[in-house]
């Protein structure tokens, strides 16, 4: 009898019963990235449409939250890294086939731009603000003059950023729940929806709130359609995809997904927004908070559930 030595990759710790190496940092990062993309997208759109005066919260005030959201999001990514001191290596290469490379470079572009955008509006809140150095004052004047080009860049980059938060998951071929092409657009729409929720929450302008409320309603309907479509696609797939969809259709994530994401995070706020458009008085914080909460739970569930699904049975 010939003795043979078997080496199995499955001996690596954490591989069985399933590989779970992404924890709470990743969904928070995906959430904040999508939120930032949503706010910047609408800031860009309404700047190009010359609506700065009519839509002050969209163009000026909500984008002031974006640098904070992005910095906290990046901190989450950093916390997740195993070899934190080597994060800079992402910036030594450009790889079009790698979603992480896309994300690293998009964030490298969006984050400083969002700081500059917020800085150009500081003087509108505090007129006595002084940049101290002549160079900074000159740079501000330059940035204020170039808001339109920045707005165009925001529109493009925010779509890339929003889609990338989904692609980051869907690029994993070995995870049947994530590995579908609808996840990118779905995360983008969800991010846009959370962005509109923030804007309609902080605006003091009733007209602006109604406009954002209407946009949000459309986004919620599109999001519900994408979720349905994702489920349909998985149910029409191979048995691993059907098992992945089963996590939400009777499996262990059924209650959290349907109660917190679909009903409380999408349908109920949509009903409240419809009632508000019909003239009923509703404290805007309630639908806004529900949408924000639903979006966060959605990312937690997707990251958690996706890691359970796999091809090896």
């Amino acid at each position, binding site marked *: 009898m010939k003795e043979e030595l078997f080496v199995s990759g499955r001996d690596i710790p954490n591989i069985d019963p399933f590989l779970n190496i992404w924890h709470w940092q990743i969904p928070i990062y995906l959430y904040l990235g999508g939120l930032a993309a949503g706010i910047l997208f609408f800031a860009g759109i309404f700047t190009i449409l010359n609506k700065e005066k009519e839509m002050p919260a969209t163009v000026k005030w909500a984008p002031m939250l974006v640098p904070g959201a992005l910095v906290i999001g990046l901190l989450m990514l950093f916390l997740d890294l195993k070899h934190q001191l080597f994060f800079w290596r992402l910036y030594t290469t450009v790889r079009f086939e790698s979603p992480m490379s896309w994300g690293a470079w998009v964030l490298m572009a969006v984050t400083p731009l969002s700081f500059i955008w917020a800085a150009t509006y500081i003087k509108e809140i505090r007129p006595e603000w002084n940049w101290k150095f002549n160079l900074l004052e000159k740079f501000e004047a330059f940035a204020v003059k170039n808001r339109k080009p920045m707005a165009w860049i925001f529109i493009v980059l925010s779509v890339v950023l929003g889609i990338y938060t989904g692609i980051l998951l869907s690029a994993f071929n070995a995870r049947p729940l994530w590995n579908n092409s609808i996840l990118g657009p779905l995360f983008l729409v969800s991010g846009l929806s959370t962005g509109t929720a923030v804007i309609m929450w902080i605006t003091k302008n009733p007209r602006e709130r109604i406009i954002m409320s209407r946009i949000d309603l459309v986004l919620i309907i599109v999001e519900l359609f994408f979720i349905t479509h994702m489920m349909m696609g998985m149910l029409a797939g191979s048995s691993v995809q059907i098992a992945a969809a089963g996590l939400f259709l009777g499996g262990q994530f059924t209650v959290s997904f349907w109660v917190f994401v679909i009903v409380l995070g999408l349908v109920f706020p949509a*009903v409240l927004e419809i*009632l508000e458009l019909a003239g009923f008085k*509703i404290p805007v914080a*309630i639908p806004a908070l529900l949408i924000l909460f639903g979006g966060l739970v959605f990312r937690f569930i997707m990251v958690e559930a996706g890691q359970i699904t796999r091809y090896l049975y």
Partner: protein
Amino acid sequence: MMENNRKDRSQNYLNPYFGGVLLGIVLILTFYITGRGLGASGAAKSTVVTTIQSVAPEYAKKSHYVSQFISDDNHPMNNWLVFEVLGVFAGAFLSGTLYGRLKPRVEHSPKITSKKRLVVALLGGLLFGFGSQVARGCTSGAALSGMAVLSFGGIITMMGIFGSAYLFSWIFKRLWI
């Protein structure tokens, strides 16, 4: 003036008889869809058990009462009553919106202050919560759902709750009229 005021307020609410019919339909649908009745105090109990379990897990294991609701394969908050009560909040919010009652306020008799009303309501709630655990159900879980399936216990609970309400209203009526 008083009459006028009452009329205005009555328009803020559903007709109570119609409301009762709706509640009955909800109860039938609940039995049909979930295979069990409605409840309310169970959600509060789940919340209390979860809180005790996270603050003092050792005590939760030792306590005869709390330990019976803790198991390794199910979180105490993963209970249909918890989600039902979330739905009750959402429904109450919708009803408040539709009837224009959606603003924070304390409902109380003009003869007492808001603070007194809140203190008395908290005491009453504590007593009712305790009673519901002794009686193994509250107005919804034991009386309403119990009577709907013609359970003798449900009828006794209903008589106990409303009978004692008649008795004690003589003492506590000054809090309302």
